[in-house]
């Protein structure tokens, strides 16, 4: 298991700071925490009973952590038993657990249809989008953890800032020096070229690839598969022109760029949108070599 736990030192300093200013609210919250813990124990006992009586339930073991809640500062796994329904996804089971047993169970989710990219997690040891992962296809108990190689904020929520920083480091926006003359005229693009960049434009920024990448785990400055794919999306777009492509190749050729990739294909394997990430990285390497040869 590779889930990272945040350092203890940060936590204790936060707790101290809070302890300096006790208020009625804090007392009430303490009381609530105690009550919540009792309630949770009671519900879990109930669940276990129910599960024993009914075989059509799914067992989930879910990673729990909260930096400021007593009993959750030490990471632990909670078990939830969820009645199985046909077509149920990991997200459905998590939502059921939250709405029925423990409203503090925390995970990002929004569209439920694999396009918002909010709910990438580590399910039975692999990076998956919870909303498009069928329960029926998983071995039980299902182990649900936050994405590895990212700092855990709470339960299944990880800090995405580093991922966003890398995405934004590749000048991820269309650039060209030449627009058509006519006021209402579009740039032309061949069907073949659109087809070439199509897969790369499907990225939903879920960061499953980054989480799966050994190189990214060891080199925090590595751009990572998603950001390089974003660069590919523009570098291969014929509408941008040769001069811009030149600039793009320089960006991805930097020290922490394409040459770090060791073609392990882990990113390609976990991508929920089936983007051939490793191939895109390899193609950029070839482009960069060709480009450098030109100037020899």
């Amino acid at each position: 298991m590779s889930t990272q736990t945040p350092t203890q030192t940060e936590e204790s300093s936060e707790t101290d700071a809070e302890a300096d200013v006790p208020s009625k609210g804090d007392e009430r919250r303490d009381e609530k925490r105690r009550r919540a813990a009792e309630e949770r124990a009671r519900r879990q006992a109930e669940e276990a009973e129910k599960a024993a009586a009914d075989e059509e339930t799914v067992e989930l073991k879910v990673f729990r952590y909260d930096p400021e809640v007593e009993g959750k500062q030490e990471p632990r796994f909670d078990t939830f038993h969820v009645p199985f329904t046909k077509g149920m996804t990991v997200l459905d089971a998590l939502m059921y657990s939250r709405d029925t047993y423990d409203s503090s169970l925390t995970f990002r989710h929004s569209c439920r249809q694999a396009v918002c990219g909010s709910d990438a997690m580590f399910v039975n040891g692999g990076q998956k989008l919870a909303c498009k992962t069928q329960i029926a296809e998983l071995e039980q108990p299902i182990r649900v953890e936050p994405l590895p190689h990212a700092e855990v904020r709470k339960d299944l929520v990880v800090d995405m800032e580093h991922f966003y920083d890398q995405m934004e480091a590749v000048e991820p926006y269309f650039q060209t020096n030449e627009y058509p003359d006519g006021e209402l005229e579009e740039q032309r693009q061949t069907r073949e070229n659109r087809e070439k960049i199509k897969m790369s434009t499907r990225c939903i920024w879920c960061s499953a690839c980054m989480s799966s990448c050994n190189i990214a785990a060891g080199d925090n400055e590595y751009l990572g598969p998603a950001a390089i794919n974003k660069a590919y999306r523009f570098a291969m777009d014929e509408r941008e022109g040769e001069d811009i492509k030149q600039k793009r190749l320089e960006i991805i050729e930097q020290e922490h760029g394409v040459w770090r990739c060791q073609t392990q294909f882990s990113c390609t394997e976990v991508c929920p949108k089936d983007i051939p990430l490793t191939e895109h990285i390899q193609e950029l390497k070839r482009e960069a070599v060709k480009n450098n040869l030109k100037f020899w």
Partner: protein
Amino acid sequence: MHEHDVIVVGAGGAGLRAAIAAQEAGADVAIVSKLHPVRSHTGAAEGGINAALRDADSWEDHAYDTMKGSDYLGDAPAVEALCQESPEEVIQLEHWGMPFSREEDGRVSQRPFGGLSFPRTTYAGAETGHQMLHTMYEQVVKRGITVYDEWHVMELAVTDEDDPADRTCHGVVAYDIQSGEISGFRAENGVILATGGMGQVFDHTTNAVANTGDGVAMAYRAGAPMEDMEFIQFHPTTLPSTGVLISEGVRGEGGILYNEEGERFMFEHGYANNDGELASRDVVSRAELTEVNEGRGIEDEYVHLDMRHLGEERILDRLENILHLAEDFEGADGLTEPMPVKPGQHYAMGGIETNEFGETVIGGLYAAGECACASVHGANRLGGNALPELIVFGKRAGRHAAGEEMGEAEVTTGKDGDWEAADYEFETEVGETGGQGPAAADGGAVATDPDGVLEAEVERAEARVEELLSRKGRNHAEIRSTVQQTMTANVNVFREEGRLEKTLDDLREAREAYKDVAVSDPSRTFNTDLIHTMETRNILDIAEALTMGALARKEFRGAHWRKEHQERKDENWLKHTLVSWNDGEPELWYKPTILEGENKIYEPKNRSY
């Protein structure tokens, strides 16, 4: 406290476009959104963007189709703005690099869509919204526009004069989901609400979990009326088990609907003898449910959408995303079998009352996109008209808020023009029950200076969060689920008086229950329990106003069908329904529809397809 010229709430298509426009007009602009921009639900839009780009087409034809589609409840100045400006906005997106589907000659492709007289829907496969959202977010990154992501806006900071038209919005109060910090965001020039849809009012919806109508509800409580809320679009092709959308593009490309007996019912049962599957969405949704109700549904629940005859090559080229959705969320292989579909809540035609520049009745408060009602969609939105609305009206609101001179509005807001009070007696009490948390302009602290108004609102928000976190009470989830179920059971495609009245009862009970709501997660870190609890208040306010409108409108127009009133009644009902919060005692009133356009009057015609 954070300070900017313009604050945009929400980071989907309308919000991003508004922010870009405001920045281009010279404003210091910031976006505040409870989701990171690329998580916004614009990304789920599939079909396309209507734009009269070609010589054989014209904005006038687009406007005619839109007015007809709206069942003559659209306001012509807004409709014409949409149709005139959509082409330049689509070209703008292309110039920003959006990967549109292309013709052999390299130009942007267009396809037929329901209710259109010309194939004018531009698209990027069946993932147009995803491409549009990401293209615009790229521009936001390029411009270095400040984004406060995962900040949930709780309330607006609005002065509390008696007449909403005298009030001014000075900013918003938001809760940082990551840290639990509450902060004021002061807007020197204006606040633009771009919070999207409210599908979570229903339980079978294509909308995201985040689409809880926050902007509509907070503007309502601050005094801006909700307009035409009874008009909800139920999309005819959603997957039965999840509500995931199957694009109209499938029917646009030639997909066919069959009932259990294998009949092509749109023709064989006479629902739309000319346009068949490509009739307007309300027509197709009613046809499907009629088939099911008359015993010709499959498993008494759904019908079949078949695209196999289009062939693998065309499907992969234009509808590939549909194959993935049907496979992942319904286990159906669209290449070898028909896909099960049924109507699902999809879009709110109504929303915050605005004029054609996005201005609400409250000074400094704007709205654009699905949360707004200008109105371009009237009683029924045409497929492919939502995305252009985002970019056309997002841009307009952004420019106006940044202080650009844009002329006199023709659409009025508030009781500024003709209006009439509704003479409808609801059997159930509606509105404030007390104990549901504060509302801006609800007779709170009296402050007149902008900072004072904002600070007072921050204090109220802090007290509310403290209250929810510290007290003992019931969880919101059950209340939310009750609301969603009663709305889907009774305020769906088919509506009857008794059940609508019962819904108001149910909603009253839910409001009473909500008085005791509490958050059991004590954490200030990523407390989604708290966020969802606050959202549920918004769902309650919207569900109530929506049901009030549905009861009061005694006619059948567009998406609004009433059992007791089976005709469109133009002599009485060529008017918008408005519900004002009125400091907790909701008031229902009407204002006339504007059918007079730039060069012509859109005379209501029989709407047949």
